[in-house]
């Protein structure tokens, strides 16, 4: 028989095991997305030493602290510009931004659209729990109409962002959405994003049983997972204008956008070569400048 010591959780090598258990609530979906991320790293055979993960602030922002990678837990909303600097200074790095909906689309919304416009070669994983969770369940730009939150105790009435539509319009080359129920599909999407050069955006709808589901009487994490299973419809290639979310409605999932356009660094080099010819010196290879 197989000895238990001969087996290892496939996600374990990617974790800072000495920091477990993590802070996420029972039934929170963030850990589940990390499983899919780990599987994608295995499947895409990416060199882990070349991989850097950048998070902002919030529950999902804590992912950076739990993964055994070069990982940066930055300021609120600024994961994308930090990641931009990292990528431009060392183009060999594979840079993943892993953060939440509030962090990426509210306080960091400006950076989100501009990074997509520039087509910076970043893989953005946006865990969307439809609310500000770390701070206690306030309305986010993604909170669907009529949902109750701590700052809209009588129900939200602001229209929400449809994130896939937003980032497609801004220029992302790869846009997909899954829920935490779709663990294998999510892993596949992340693997696909690693094959793309340019700004890739994967939205993962995830339960926040402590704040969003509780306040809206939607049950616990498991009930939410069952809801995802029941209400999700795979709609690959559907126009992103049609994938906005509602409080209790269908969740369109799938790969919505997969297109090619030159990324920021390719465009930059091409422009310099055209204008400067031989005078252009490419960014030097990063090497240790030890003292």
């Amino acid at each position, binding site marked *: 028989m197989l000895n238990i010591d001969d087996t290892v959780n496939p996600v374990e090598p990617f974790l800072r095991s000495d920091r477990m258990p993590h802070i996420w*609530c*029972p039934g929170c979906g963030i850990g589940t997305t990390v499983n899919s991320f780990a599987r994608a790293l295995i499947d895409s055979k990416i060199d882990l030493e070349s991989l850097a993960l950048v998070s902002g602030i919030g529950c999902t922002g804590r992912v950076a602290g739990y993964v055994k990678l070069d990982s940066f837990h930055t300021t609120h909303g600024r994961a994308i510009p930090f990641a931009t600097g990292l990528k431009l200074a060392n183009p060999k790095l594979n840079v993943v931004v892993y953060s939440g909906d509030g962090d990426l689309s509210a306080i960091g919304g400006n950076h989100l659209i501009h990074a997509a416009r520039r087509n910076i070669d970043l893989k953005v994983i946006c865990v969307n729990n439809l609310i500000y969770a770390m701070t206690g369940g306030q309305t986010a730009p993604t909170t669907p109409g009529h949902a109750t939150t701590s700052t809209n105790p009588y129900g939200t009435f602001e229209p929400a962002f449809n994130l896939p539509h937003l980032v497609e319009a801004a220029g992302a080359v790869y846009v997909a959405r899954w829920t935490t129920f779709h663990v294998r599909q999510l892993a596949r999407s992340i693997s696909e994003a690693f094959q793309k050069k340019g700004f890739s955006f994967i939205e993962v709808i995830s339960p926040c049983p402590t704040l969003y589901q509780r306040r809206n009487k939607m049950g616990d994490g498991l009930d939410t997972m*069952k809801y995802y299973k029941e209400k999700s419809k795979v709609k690959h290639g559907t126009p992103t204008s049609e994938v906005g979310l509602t409080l209790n409605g269908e969740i369109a999932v799938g790969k919505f956008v997969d297109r090619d356009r030159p990324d920021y660094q390719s465009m930059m080099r091409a422009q310099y070569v055209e204008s400067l010819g031989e005078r252009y010196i490419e960014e030097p290879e990063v090497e240790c400048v030890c003292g």
Partner: protein
Amino acid sequence: MAKGRVSIVVERCKACGFCVEFCPTHVLALSSAFNSKGYHPPHVVHPEKCSGCDLCGMYCPDFAIYGTKVAEPKLVKAAGGEK
């Protein structure tokens, strides 16, 4: 003989029940026992049904469970040799 087996890191579990619900062959149930944080971790009720698909591991938000394929006897030896 079961094609797979489940390993559970009891102390990491927060009893969300994802693994129990989504196990395709219904191998698991939440146990009545507590871990030290007061959660009821899952336990294996139908070991013979486990296919080792690791869907439980994919779903577990707490990295507390995973499934592995049980290798053919010949392969087990080879794996042991590598160690």
